[in-house]
C-alpha cells in the first residue's frame, strides 16, 4: 500500500492541499479527479516523493518516508514510477528513446540492461527503429510509451500517471490506458490523475474526487 495521510502541501505561501488522505492499492487503478488548479498534480507529486509537504506522512509498503526529492531515500523513490503530462517535456531532447528507457537501468550491468530494454520495448510496442530515434522524430504517443517504459523499467510497485494522456489523441489515450491496465493486472498499484471523469470512469477501478479527500470534506469513500 502507498498511503498519504494528512498531507499539507503547496508552493511557498500558497497552500494547495489542506490535510489530504489517499491510498493506492497494489493491483488496482485508483482514479483521482478534480478540476484544473485543484491540486491533483501536487498530490500526485507528493505521493511520488517529488514534492515537499509541510505536514502529513507518506508511507510506502509500511515504511514512512522522510523528505522528498533528492532527500527521500533513492530505493523508495524507485518503488514509485511516474509518468508526466507532456512526454516532450519529460524526455531530454538529446537522448534517443533507447537511452531514455535505459536511464534508470544505469550502465553497470551492460548485458542485463540490453536485455531489459528489449523486454520493455516489446512490452510497450517500440520497434528497434523507434528506439534509435530522438524525441522530436517520434509521435507523442510513441514518446509517451517510452516514458511509460522508463517509469516501469525498475519494476516499481506503484505507478503515478499525472494527466499522462491529457495531451494525447483518443486512440493514443486508449493505448496508454490499455498498457497501464496490463501493469495493474500484473500487480502494480496505479494512481491515475485526470480532469476527465469520462476517461477515469472507463480506465480506473474506482474514481476519487480530490475535493472529497480533504479532511474538512471527507466522506466515506474508503468503502
Amino acid at each position: 500500500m502507498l498511503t498519504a495521510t494528512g498531507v499539507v502541501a503547496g508552493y511557498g505561501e500558497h497552500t494547495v492541499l489542506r490535510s489530504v488522505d489517499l491510498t493506492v492499492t497494489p493491483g488496482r487503478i485508483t482514479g483521482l479527479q478534480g478540476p484544473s488548479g485543484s491540486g491533483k498534480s501536487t498530490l500526485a507529486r507528493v505521493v511520488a516523493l517529488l514534492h515537499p509537504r509541510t505536514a502529513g506522512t507518506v508511507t510506502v509498503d509500511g515504511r514512512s518516508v522522510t523528505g522528498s526529492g533528492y532527500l527521500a531515500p533513492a530505493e523508495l523513490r524507485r518503488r514509485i514510477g511516474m509518468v508526466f503530462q507532456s512526454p516532450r517535456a519529460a524526455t531530454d531532447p538529446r537522448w534517443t528513446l533507447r537511452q531514455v528507457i535505459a536511464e534508470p537501468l544505469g550502465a553497470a550491468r551492460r548485458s542485463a540492461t540490453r536485455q531489459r530494454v528489449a523486454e520493455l520495448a516489446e512490452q510497450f510496442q517500440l520497434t528497434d527503429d523507434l528506439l534509435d530515434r530522438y524525441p522530436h522524430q517520434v509521435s507523442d504517443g510513441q514518446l509517451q510509451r517510452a516514458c511509460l517504459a522508463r517509469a516501469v523499467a525498475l519494476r516499481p510497485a506503484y505507478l503515478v500517471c499525472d494527466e499522462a494522456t491529457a495531451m494525447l489523441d483518443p486512440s493514443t489515450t486508449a493505448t496508454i490506458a490499455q498498457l497501464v491496465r496490463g501493469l495493474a493486472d500484473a500487480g502494480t498499484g496505479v494512481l491515475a490523475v485526470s480532469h476527465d471523469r469520462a476517461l477515469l470512469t472507463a480506465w480506473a477501478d474506482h474514481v476519487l474526487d480530490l475535493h472529497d479527500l480533504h479532511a474538512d470534506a471527507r466522506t466515506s469513500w474508503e468503502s
Partner: protein
Amino acid sequence: MTSELTAVPRAIDRSRWRAPVTWRPARVPGGRRRWVLPLCVGVLVVLVLFAVVVPWVAGIDPRQTALADANQAPSWDHWFGTDQAGRDLVVRVAEGLRVSLLVAAVCAVVATVLGCVVGLTAAVVGGRTDRVLMRTVDGLNAVPHLLLGIVIAAMWKGAILAVIASIALTHWTQVARIVRAQALTVRTRDYVLATVSLGGSRRQVLVRHLLPAVAPQALLSVALLLPHAVWHESALSFLGVGLPPDRPSLGTLLEDARTRILVGQWWTLVFPSLALIATTAAVAGLSAAARDRLLPHRRTEVGVGGAA
C-alpha cells in the same frame, strides 16, 4: 458576384483542377549547411599551420630589423609587405597569430570553465551558496574589468601568464550568469524530475542532464570570448602592461597599423585583421555546428513531431 470567379470554382470539374500536378514554391532545402563544419575546420587548420609552421620554416627572427626594406607594399618577396622596421609581415602575422591564439584560447577556456563551475554550483546547490556566488559575480561586474585586468597584469609586467590571468579572471562572470540561468531552467524540467523519481542523485542529474544542457552555451561563450580576448590582450599591450612591444601579437600588430594606415600603408592593417576575422568566423561557425550536433532537434529544422 459569382460569374467572374475564375479562381474559385463552385461546380468542380475535377480533371481540370487536379492535373497538371505542379508544386510551388519548390525550394529544395537539403544540404544547405553541410559545408559549414568542414569549411570552419579547414580554415582553423590552415590558420594554426600558418601560425606554427611559418615562423619555424622562414628561419627569420621576427624581431630582426632590416631598415633598407622598410614600409614595402606586398610583393613577391614579401607577400604581406613589411613594416616600418623592414620586418616581413608574413612572419610577424604568423608569430602574432600564434601568440594571440595561445593567449586567447587559454583565456577563453579558463574563463568558460571557471564560469561553468561557478554557475552550475550556484544552480545545483542553491540557497546560501547561490546567493554568495552570485553576489560575488555582481561585485566583480561592478568594477570596470579593464581596470581590474590592468591591476592583475601590472603585478607581473610583461609575463604572458599575467596577461592570461588578467583576462580570464575578469571574464568568467558573464559565463557564470548565463550557465546558472540555463541550468536553473533545465533543473525544473520534467525529465529531471523523472530522473529524481527513478532514484537519481544530484550528481547524476548534473552529469546526465545539466552539463549537456549548458555545453552549447559554454561553446558559444568560448567562441565569443576568443576574439574578445585578442582585443583585450592588445589593449593591455597598448597600455604598457601587456606583452612587450617587440613581441608580436595580433594586438600589437594592429596597434602598429593604427598609425601606419594614416600614411596609406594598408597592408599593415589588412593582413593582421584578416587573420583575426578568419579566426573569429571559423571559431564561431565551428561552435554553431557543434551546437547543432549537441541538440538533435536542431538537425532537422522542421520537426515531424510538431506537425499535429
